């Protein structure tokens, strides 16, 4: 009885998300039509593109990797009652710090240098995120404001470094001056698993970490306290849990995951730090987390889906020659509709209003739910 209820609930959530997606695409179709392209052709390339050949299939996963890593951090922070909007900044801080270490010790063997680079990137992201958490806990600074501002600082700092002190010596030698670092030592590159594609093992690292986060949040005392701090801060405080401490920790973890995402993107895809490395993953990761219903395991399919959508949108742009702005608008619409659909989960009484005369069974169930919630 209970199990089947839960099944019905998760099925209805999936249906809800699918509905949100569909509506976003319908509105997007109008935009495409206005831009002078055939929406059907456009969507065909968008949806079939990611499934066309091994490049499409793997590239979706390549894009899903940083999305999932950032998303895991966002899940952790949201569950702990603190919102991390600073994924972008934390990503580039992680990438630039890890790259600095790797470039400083180019001769070290991979067994030492790879873990070291990854750890440094996690720490750099954690410091950047943890700082926002500390500002919130000690000075009451709203974390949304502070993380967004820290994004700007991090992006500009990174740009300064890759234009100046850390610029690739060859760029100076040839006088081209493209803002990017030199390639990182070859021995720590993340191996590509399918020939002719950019698919690297970072994806599996991210999936494994999703399970680690799940166990951490639901099976350890620290995760328990973080969730208690997020979901009932007053009760947690009265029960002796230092809510502020765990929120700083949550922000540090969120930053750490984003920093790792940045480094994995460098080691697996670009092999160097370049401008625009974060590519909006820091924000899209939030959507992945929300789409995955703030559950680390749910974030896996969510990340893959958004990887496919991102790739499909790129392909659509090429197929029907519509402005890139339309593609970005469609992505924005997806985010808007998905986040908006959450209101139906949190306020089931909306259904009741809609289904009032049509479906007495749904009505009764929803009422019992909301009545139960109230007691």
């Amino acid at each position, binding site marked *: 009885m209970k199990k089947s209820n839960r099944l019905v609930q998760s099925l209805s959530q999936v249906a809800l998300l699918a509905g949100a997606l569909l509506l976003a695409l319908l509105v997007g179709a109008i935009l495409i039509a206005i831009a002078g392209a055939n929406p059907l052709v456009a969507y065909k390339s968008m949806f079939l593109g990611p499934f066309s050949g091994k490049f499409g299939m793997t590239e979706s996963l390549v894009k899903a990797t940083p999305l999932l890593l950032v998303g895991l951090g966002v899940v952790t922070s949201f569950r702990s009652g603190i919102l991390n909007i600073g994924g972008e900044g934390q990503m580039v801080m992680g990438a630039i710090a890890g790259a600095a270490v790797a470039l400083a010790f180019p001769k070290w063997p991979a067994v030492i240098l790879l873990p070291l680079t990854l750890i440094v990137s996690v720490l750099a992201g954690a410091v950047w995120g943890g700082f926002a958490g500390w500002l919130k806990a000690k000075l009451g600074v709203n974390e949304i404001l502070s993380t967004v501002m820290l994004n700007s600082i991090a992006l500009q700092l990174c740009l300064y470094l890759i234009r100046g002190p850390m610029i690739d010596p060859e760029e100076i030698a040839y006088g081209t001056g493209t803002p990017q670092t030199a390639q990182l030592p070859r021995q720590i590159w993340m191996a590509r698993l399918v020939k002719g594609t950019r698919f690297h093992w970072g994806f599996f690292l991210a999936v494994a970490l999703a399970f680690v986060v799940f166990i951490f949040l639901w099976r350890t005392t620290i995760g328990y306290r973080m969730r208690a701090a997020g979901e*009932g801060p007053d009760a947690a405080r009265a029960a002796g849990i230092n809510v502020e401490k765990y929120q700083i920790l949550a922000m540090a973890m969120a930053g750490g995951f984003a920093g790792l995402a940045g480094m994995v993107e460098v080691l697996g895809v670009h092999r160097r730090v370049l401008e625009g490395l974060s590519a909006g993953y820091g924000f899209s990761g939030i959507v992945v987390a929300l789409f995955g219903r703030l559950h680390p395991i749910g974030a896996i399919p969510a990340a893959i889906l958004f990887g496919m959508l991102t790739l499909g949108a790129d392909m659509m742009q090429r197929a029907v020659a519509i402005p890139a702005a339309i593609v970005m608008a469609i992505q924005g619409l997806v985010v808007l509709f998905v986040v908006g659909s959450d209101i139906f989960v949190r306020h089931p009484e909306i259904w009741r209003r809609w289904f009032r005369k049509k479906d007495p069974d749904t009505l009764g169930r929803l*009422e019992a739910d909301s009545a139960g*919630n109230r007691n």
Partner: protein
Amino acid sequence: MLKIHGISFEQKQDPGRCRITMESQEGLRIKDVKMQGIVKTFPGVLANDHVDIDVHAGEILALLGENGAGKTTLMKVLYGLYRPDSGEILINDEPVSISSPRDAIDLGIGMVHQHFMLVPSLTVTENVVLGLRSSRGPLLDLESAAKRIEELASRYSLAVDPYSPVWQLSIGEQQRVEIIKALYRGAELLIMDEPTAVLTPQEADELIRVMRGMADSGRAIILITHKLHEVMAVSDRVTVLRNGRLVDTVLTKDANEKLLAQMMVGRDIPQTLRTDETSQGDPVLVLDDVWADSDKGPPALRGLSLEVREGEILGIAGVSGNGQREMAEVIAGLRKISSGSVRLKGEDMTNSTPAKMIQAGLGYIPEDRIVDGIVQSFSVEENLILKDHHKPPFSHGIFLQKDAISEFAKEMVEIYDIRTPSIDTQASHLSGGNIQRLILARDISRNPACLLACYPSRGLDIAATEYVRKKLLDVRAAGCAIILISEELEEIFNLSDRVAVLYEGQIVKVADVDDVTLDEIGLLMAGAGLTETDDGNSRELVDMI
């Protein structure tokens, strides 16, 4: 005037009183409202089973029943929040269809919910006109609205400043705003859902007067309650519900508390009483000359001193807002003190953390059990280990031990009779009484040296109230030192060994319960007796005992 708990509080001047009767002829539409054969089911629950009630203009009908008897469901049907499965509603003998609160409001039915629906940052006037069409089109006309609010306020003695932001108002004042909101929208039948549950005795007393005034002006009032003395004090007729069924409707003057109680629970109510002698243990918790600030600045505790001994219950009497909340928070480690000291079991615990207080043996039943007592989205099982999750057997290293936790949770559910579908059920789905049982289970099973119980029976039905009281006495018998903060003087007198009166942040008197009367304590609660004592004397009183 009216008496609650056997004490009459000083009443304010009531200039509106005579106008009420003079204006009772205004053109009201509702003569009577009938609900006939109302059936409302939720899956697995028959909330209302063919219930008939009726209410007439100018009368106060009390709707009496235990928690879960179906009172609120029935009223939500009347207010358009629920649609009944069958049955009909008649106004002046004509059937009406009410499918939303808007329909209800249009028909002249208003409801004051138990949890207020006000926007804290807006002023009283802004809250009242919220959602209404303005007479000046897109522009607000707050001035004339404020004027009407003032009119309504003075007519029904609902003293409230139309220009104050709601967050600055006390609970009692917020409730008045809710009543004004309903009246402003033309409510002629006012449904009040347990309106006194959140009020101090004084505020409750005032509210009852207001309700009487509204009824005298020709409006009808349905009062949802499970407090018998309220029913006797204010209502004209009583409808009693039990398990979703109508038991009977009787004239209040033909009833008495004992009869109503039997109708309500279907059996005689046991009265939990402390029976044995006062014990003379060592002091466990000692507060000495504690000063602490309130949230809004001025000190809430002004040199408060008290001590609680092993195996005794110290009842804290006082009108709420005199420092109860701050005192509880200081003891729980949640509020810093600016001077003075707190000692627990002889150790200095001044300004220590909640974790250290818990570690040192403090149990805490918070005033707001839903916000401070449980993590709502956590399961019953997760909530039961909130204070001990980091200790064996519940965890090993950093890993939680699922089996040990489940076993403990099942045991607690059994021993404390927590009514829950399973230990995985989200705690917010439990009823108030069962949430309180959960909190009791968690805090009592830790064998606390000192238990701080804040309004432990507030809002609970009779059975749950008796359970809580019995548990407190059990814990006392086991040697625990208990501080009982309560607004119900009867509860304090029935359970406590000693009673302390809290007034304006000080303990103004401590005495053996047997040596004082309800009236004396009531006077001290109202501030009488402070005129001849200065600040120093109140400490001497404590020291003397």
